[in-house]
């Protein structure tokens, strides 16, 4: 009798374990992407500030802003709209850059936030939130200054 009970409990535990492991596995497999748009910004700065920070010490800036798993810092960047364009997926790309700066912040919007970017005009001062993908740098092969890249962007109204 006692032995049967132990076996029964054992089987129940094993089955429960398998179900839980399966559920975690399934969750991990279908884990949703981080919702950058509703995430709180980790840092709030101007386009000039982050460009200056990257041009002064790119590795220190990467250490501060980039995450090893790609879920890097969410930034709120304030600056002047320098250019509005489209990428190959039809997403709006807004470049924030102050006249005297060598590089700016290029922010790619999403299908959900595109409409907000369409209302912008060159010269306007705005704040954009997005996840940083890479920093600003002078590239001697391109012979150009590369912009800071943000994705999953939207306009922040304060």
């Amino acid at each position, binding site marked *: 009798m006692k032995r049967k009970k132990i076996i029964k409990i054992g089987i129940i535990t094993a089955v429960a374990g398998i179900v839980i492991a399966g559920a975690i596995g399934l969750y991990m497999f279908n884990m949703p992407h981080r919702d950058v748009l509703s995430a709180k910004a980790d840092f709030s700065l101007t386009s000039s500030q982050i460009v200056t920070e990257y041009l002064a010490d790119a590795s220190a800036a990467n250490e501060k802003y980039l995450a090893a798993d790609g879920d890097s810092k969410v930034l709120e960047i304030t600056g002047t709209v320098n250019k509005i364009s489209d*990428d190959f997926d039809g997403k709006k790309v807004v470049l924030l850059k102050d006249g005297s700066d060598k590089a700016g912040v290029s922010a790619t919007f999403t299908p959900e936030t595109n409409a907000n970017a369409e209302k912008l005009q060159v010269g306007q001062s705005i704040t954009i939130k997005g996840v940083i993908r*890479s920093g600003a740098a002078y590239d001697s*092969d391109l012979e150009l200054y590369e912009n800071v890249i943000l994705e999953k962007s939207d306009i922040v109204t304060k």
Partner: protein
Amino acid sequence: MKKLVLVVIAAVLFAGFSANGQSKLVSSKSHIKFFSTTPAEDIEANNTTSVSTINPSTGEIVFSVPMQGFEFEKALMQKHFNGKDFLNTKEFPKAKLTGKITNIDKIDFSKDGTYDAHVEGELTIKGVTKPVHEMGKITVTGGKVDASSKFNITLADYGITFVKGKPSTNIAKTVEVTLQAEYAAQ
């Protein structure tokens, strides 16, 4: 008199520019796709954040690719991709192609048409540089220049190897890269 001086300066400058040939073409509108196929599954990642330049006189071509800009359908795959064992994108945030279009003399950037481009150069991924020799196409339409190419990358060449677990069965040893970029004069 002042006017004449200006005209002369302008003429000299113009002559200087002409002698230098065409100005560099710059692209900040691009699309790079990774595609891996195995019997287990197909995996795709897309990136629209690269910057590229072509020098129409010398044929020099450069692509700078922010690695964290690759987006996957599944969030977990994206995390793995960025992680230390795969692309280690925190330490190596950019991949780069530097090369030369060896048959640049056959490409007329002032005439509409589609031209084959032979590119020889070096590709750096995860800090490892390897020689590459690929074929691409340059399309000129009304002053607009497009470049496209499709080639394969063997992951092990760049120190990306999986010996066990799901990645070793679900990620192809060789992935197909498709790239497209639209250029404008600088």
